[in-house]
């Protein structure tokens, strides 16, 4: 995973350096790569019979996890909002 991180920072650095000279639309490129990756993930998953039979378990775990994550971040966002507003309007 460290290689992946290092490559991201390399990209960031390169982007900063090239920023003034090159104008490219990378988001389409990224979409293609992500789609390709998800397809490979789908293939890996499809071959894993044990996993295919556990789809319902995965769904329940995922639903509980996402609901709690959303609730948690909403609660802290609510507290943060009150704190910002309490300390004077736009918070600047």
């Amino acid at each position, binding site marked *: 995973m*460290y290689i992946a991180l290092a*490559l991201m920072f390399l990209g960031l650095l390169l982007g*900063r350096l090239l920023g003034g000279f090159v104008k490219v639309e*990378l988001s389409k490129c990224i979409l293609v790569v992500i789609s390709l990756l998800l397809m490979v993930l789908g293939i890996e998953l499809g071959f894993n019979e044990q996993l295919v039979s556990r789809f319902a378990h995965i769904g329940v775990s995922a639903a509980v996890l996402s609901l709690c994550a*959303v609730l948690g*971040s909403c609660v802290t*966002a609510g507290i943060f909002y009150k704190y910002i507003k309490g300390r004077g309007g736009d918070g600047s």
Partner: protein
Amino acid sequence: MAASIIILSSFVVGLFLAVFGIVPSDFDFSAISKYILYLLMFLVGLNLGLDKEVVKTIKSQPKRMLLLPFSTMAGTFAGAVLAWGILRLASSLGAFGGLAETGSLSLADSISVGAGFGYYSLSSIFLNEARGAEIGTIALAANILRELITIAFAPLMVRFFGKLAPISSGGATSMDTTLPIIQKTAGNEYVPLSIFHGVVVDFSVPLFLTFFISLG
């Protein structure tokens, strides 16, 4: 939304390719996914580096508002710990018809899934590589759901938790897929903050994942 549909369809296509045996099963797909992940990470960094607007957006924000991503992270991790507790309890009580039996989901895994912050493609790929296909798939489903829940419930979030709630709930997606609904429910003035929030949270995903994965 169009991008999400394309990405999800690719996943479903891959699933069918395997289930119906259209692609050979003795091929090492995990090695391929690793190298595509490297390419993806490089492109994500490059894209962020090339975008001059990001720095401008960050500079235009009121100072204290810039702490919002940290509030999102704290809330999400608290939620992930709660979810792990609920799943553990439900599993031991046999609730949800026994479906809450979590198998190998550790506390670190639960927080790792939360640390996807809605960035389902990257988090599922990372966790698939590091923790296996089951955790990877939970990460995929949970983070897709996070995006969908945000889009569906943004108006309620604003009413009960204030205007920053849909931004936090959107997580890493607050700069793209959930931005339109945030703009609609919280207002135009929250768009720059939402983009800034998305960029910071987005960037934190691989950092947190690397950290939590190392905890096992």
